[in-house]
């Protein structure tokens, strides 16, 4: 069996000032090429789990291993973020450059690619997602569905080995939702989707896991 992409051991995490922790002795594993959906009631820690993996939040106790490397410090997570993509719930949080092309090229530029190559990657990614002709569109003038697809392009442009998606289908119309489904089904990398839409998850993932305080198990 191949090495897991993500391993979490005995994680304890509580938000400051919260009366009880979100996770206590939480254990979790994600295997390569796994496509899983994360489900559970509001506030059960689905988004928190994604943010712990990206190092946006730090556990009070426990061990996180990503791609076989233990990660604990900001420096470790900087390396993680080069390989793991996170699609935020709200596209307005993700898109901050004036134009679409600049936003999609932002990640590759941060990875140290020269501008010409970054533009090339950005264009290819946009082409793949059917966003041809969006290069010079202004990000805040896009529709909700377009914003979501462009956000996905900004993440995929970094060529991640693992993708985390936080409620990607929320607020999208049927047509855009289908487009998104097909994009995800064509991806060759592992991903985890947080969603409340069982229909969307049944098409895009192999199994759904319930997020609890101690574990994250298939239903």
């Amino acid at each position, binding site marked *: 069996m191949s090495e897991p992409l993500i391993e979490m051991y005995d994680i304890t995490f509580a938000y400051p000032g919260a009366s009880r922790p979100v996770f206590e002795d939480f254990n979790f594993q994600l295997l390569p090429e796994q496509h899983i959906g994360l489900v559970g009631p509001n506030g059960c820690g689905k988004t928190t789990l994604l943010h712990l993996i990206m190092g946006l939040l730090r556990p009070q106790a426990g061990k996180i291993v990503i791609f076989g490397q233990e990660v604990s410090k900001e420096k470790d997570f900087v390396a993680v973020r080069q390989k793991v993509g996170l699609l935020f719930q709200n596209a307005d949080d993700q898109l901050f450059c*004036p134009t679409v092309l600049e936003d999609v090229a932002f990640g590759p530029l941060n990875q140290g690619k020269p501008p010409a190559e970054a533009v090339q990657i950005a264009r290819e990614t946009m082409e793949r997602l059917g966003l041809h002709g969006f290069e010079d569109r202004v990000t805040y003038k896009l529709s909700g569905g377009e914003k979501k697809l462009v956000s996905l392009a900004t993440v995929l442009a970094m060529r991640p080995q693992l993708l985390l998606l936080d409620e990607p289908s929320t607020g999208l119309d049927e047509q855009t939702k289908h487009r998104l489904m097909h994009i995800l089904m064509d991806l060759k990398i592992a991903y985890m989707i947080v969603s409340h839409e069982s229909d969307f998850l049944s098409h895009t993932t192999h199994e759904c896991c319930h997020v609890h305080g101690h574990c994250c198990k298939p239903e």
Partner: protein
Amino acid sequence: MSPIGEPFSEGASLAHRLDPRGKMVVATLFAVLVAVAKTYTATLAGLAVALFWLALARLPLKKVVVRLLVVNSFIFFLWFVLPLTYPGEAVWRFGPLAASRQGLLFTGLITLKSNAIIIALIALIATVPVATLGQAMYNLRLPDKLCHLLLFTYRYLYVFEEEYHRLVQAMKVRGFQPRTNLHTYRSYAYLAAMLLVRSLDRADRVFQAMRCRGFHGVFYSLRTFSWQRRDGIFVAVSMLVLMILVFLEWWRPGLMWRRL
């Protein structure tokens, strides 16, 4: 609800095609120079220079006039106050009030200066899209924080405006009508506070999203500016003109003042 309009930023005139860096440097020097000028000679010359730049930009005149009217509506009030309060020789009396000659001259000078600077900024700075302006500032080695501040304000102002409208709508649908009472003041205070809290939250999330995409404090720009011969000529000629303005200011200062 509309994003920030940049009606002057699009065009193909010479002023639009010039390198934004050169325009920024010239506009800044010009604004400082005109602002500190004390003579009508230098100010009027400055106004002439600004009008020349405006002619180069070939902007829709009507929109320029509208924008100037907005600025001048503030200056309009100066004409009521300054001549009456500025000490000097009275030229016009109205009961206990007296308008002084020096006051009138001074107000006139302020009016000319303000218009000269605004016209120059419209011609040189408003012809650059805000996003490009940020990149140009970055390129001119201005402090990173200043450039980021400009770019992020530009990007998120619209989002905050939308958020504000959503909150106001939510208040309205629950029957809120502004009146002169404590409830109204308190509700507006809540509105302002909520906007502040939300923007802080959003700032956090935007920063997180940027970190997830490998941001480490440095912006890489896709835009490359190309400095061409016309930019060199523009800056050189402008510097010469600015030097003439300095000369006019220092050469027998107060000449126009005394004659008027």
